[in-house]
């Protein structure tokens, strides 16, 4: 029998029981679809995080506060202070930049334009270099201006556009809350990184933000405490040495032994490593989920193929009596099982790709459909079909023609 004829018989058998065939395929559809959607979510998350990490700038070391238990005031004690940043810049070799950031939110007025809830980012002077930002126009502020609490500001590119349009913003006044600042520069467009829009923010010396715009009581009591210091390293080779220097310096400044340090030092590599470990764990979980659902789908196919063999025992007998060999019968049922799983796989791919897109647009999470996941899921479906289709097909092939013909 020609393979095209075998295919036609199998296809006709599937179409004869449309609902049953569809229900049989459901396991495969869900399995394949789930793999594609989940891999798309995982790949999307990974891409976002990678972009975020890269956008932070290369060769970064993060010094973070670990607050100790509340003291007499009930507020956390210890941790990093603003001056620690300057100390690292001055006291550690091989450091090319140190940045401390403090954000706030304020209403901004300039000319006739009023913008509510604009994010203010107070930083030290090394910010553009450490965070990989460039100046489009004018300049960023320097250390002296930070120290002197100068009322100056640098605009993100889209913020500049919104406030001043075609007008050159350099030298113009803006009112932030109730404070007047002079614009000294505009940043190059950076775009959206993760959830952060770097272009809509207003940048100013951290001293100004701490002084004028951190309104909460918590912040005020915390005073010059900072949560995070970004340290840019000149050369990756010296990373371990620099980390040790920072630890020793800060421990000495805080008057604590290293074991009881109120801060931690991590590198981008640590973050990437953690991210990779998380992703790997997620991937292997995905693998299990997909594997289990495909096996369940395969058992569904085997079950329905066994039913089909029983239902069509008479037909098998007729075919045998007019010359079908065991292999003819085996191929016919194997083809049917394969077709079920492949059509199921195909529907699963459509649902998976569509599902990833819908999930992405509904949840706002980024999803990236990975071609390999489609190929993997689809070929797994085919293997499952062949594997679970073999037993029923073999059963059909082994039927005794006389018994089969007698079957009602």
């Amino acid at each position, binding site marked *: *029998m*020609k393979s095209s*004829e075998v295919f036609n018989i199998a296809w006709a058998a599937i179409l*004869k029981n449309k609902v049953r065939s569809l229900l049989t395929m459901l396991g495969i559809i869900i399995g394949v679809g789930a793999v594609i959607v989940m891999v798309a979510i995982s790949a999307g998350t990974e891409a976002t995080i990678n972009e975020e990490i890269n956008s932070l700038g290369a060769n970064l070391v993060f010094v973070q506060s670990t607050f100790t238990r509340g003291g007499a005031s009930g507020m956390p004690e210890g941790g990093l202070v603003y001056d620690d940043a300057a100390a690292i810049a001055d006291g550690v070799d091989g450091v090319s930049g140190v940045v401390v950031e403090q954000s706030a939110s304020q209403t901004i007025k300039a000319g006739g334009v009023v913008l509510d809830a604009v994010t203010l980012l107070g930083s030290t002077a090394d910010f553009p270099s450490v965070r990989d930002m460039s100046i489009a126009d004018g300049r960023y502020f320097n250390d002296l201006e930070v120290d002197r609490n100068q009322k100056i500001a640098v605009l993100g590119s889209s913020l500049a556009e919104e406030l001043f349009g075609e007008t050159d913003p350099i030298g113009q006044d803006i009112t932030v809350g109730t404070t007047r600042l002079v614009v000294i520069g505009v940043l190059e467009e950076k775009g959206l990184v993760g959830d952060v829009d770097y272009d809509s923010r207003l940048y100013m010396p951290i001293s100004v933000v701490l002084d004028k715009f951190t309104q909460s009581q918590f912040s005020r009591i915390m005073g010059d405490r900072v949560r995070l210091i970004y340290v840019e390293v000149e050369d990756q080779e010296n990373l371990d040495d620099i980390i040790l220097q920072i630890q020793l310096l800060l421990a000495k400044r805080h008057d604590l032994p290293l074991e009881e340090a109120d801060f931690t030092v991590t590198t981008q590599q640590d973050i990437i490593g953690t991210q990779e470990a998380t992703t790997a764990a997620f991937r292997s979980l995905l693998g299990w989920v997909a594997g289990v659902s495909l096996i369940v789908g395969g058992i569904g196919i085997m079950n329905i193929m066994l039913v089909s063999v029983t239902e069509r025992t*008479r*037909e098998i*007998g*007729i*075919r*045998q*009596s*007019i*010359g*079908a*060999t*065991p*292999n*003819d019968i085996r191929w016919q049922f194997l083809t049917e099982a394969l077709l079920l799983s492949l059509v199921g796989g195909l529907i699963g791919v459509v649902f998976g790709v569509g599902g990833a897109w819908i999930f992405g647009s509904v949840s706002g999470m980024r999803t990236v459909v990975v071609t390999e996941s489609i190929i993997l899921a689809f070929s797994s479906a085919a293997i499952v079909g062949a594997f679970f289709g073999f037993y029923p097909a073999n059963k059909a092939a082994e039927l*005794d*023609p*006389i018994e089969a*013909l007698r079957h009602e």
Partner: protein
Amino acid sequence: MTARAIIETKDLTQIYGMGDARVAALDGVSISVHDGEFVAIMGPSGSGKSTLMNILGCLSRPTSGAYYLDSETVSELDKVELAAIRNKKIGYIFQSYNLLSRTTALDNVILPLQYDRETERTTEERIDVATKVLNMVGLVDRIKHQPQELSGGQQQRVAIARALVNNPVLIMADEPTGNLDSKSGAEIMQLLHDLHDEGATIVMVTHSTEIASHTERTIHLLDGKIDKIIGNGKKATK
């Protein structure tokens, strides 16, 4: 004048069951059917005629004994070889027609051609061959109908066409009129006699002495053995 033997059996024995439950459904049956002969097999139920039919039709193999079909020792063939023999050398006509449901008369008749490995035919050639055979058995305008749309007599004609399509050396008919009213039954028997007159070798199981009496010989089976063989006098006209 001795015609070539199509069927030749030596001590065919079929044993079912094990140990004390052993039953010999066939017990040393030796028969011979020559080319162009029309033979009826009769016997009460349990006499072994179904078992004999299954062996002669190459649907099963005897426990012991030899069966030569068209000079080939088929009692020693395996499943795959037997399937090829069934396809090329034997045409079956069953009491309950055994057509594939939801499959047109034409496609039912094409089926043996599809399982034929030896002869290369295009789809058009197959349709051509099958249509000719269907016309020959008297079905012209209903070849695109499915079995459930045909009368019993018409279904049996489709089955006969299917049996003939590969030019078999032997036609096995198992109670071919058993499910038909007397008029359709008579028409089907006439068709079989026409085939016989054109030279076909036919072995037919029947319960009806009347139907058997129109064949050349009747083989009576009893308890797995040949009870008697009666010559009926009909001769092939060609």
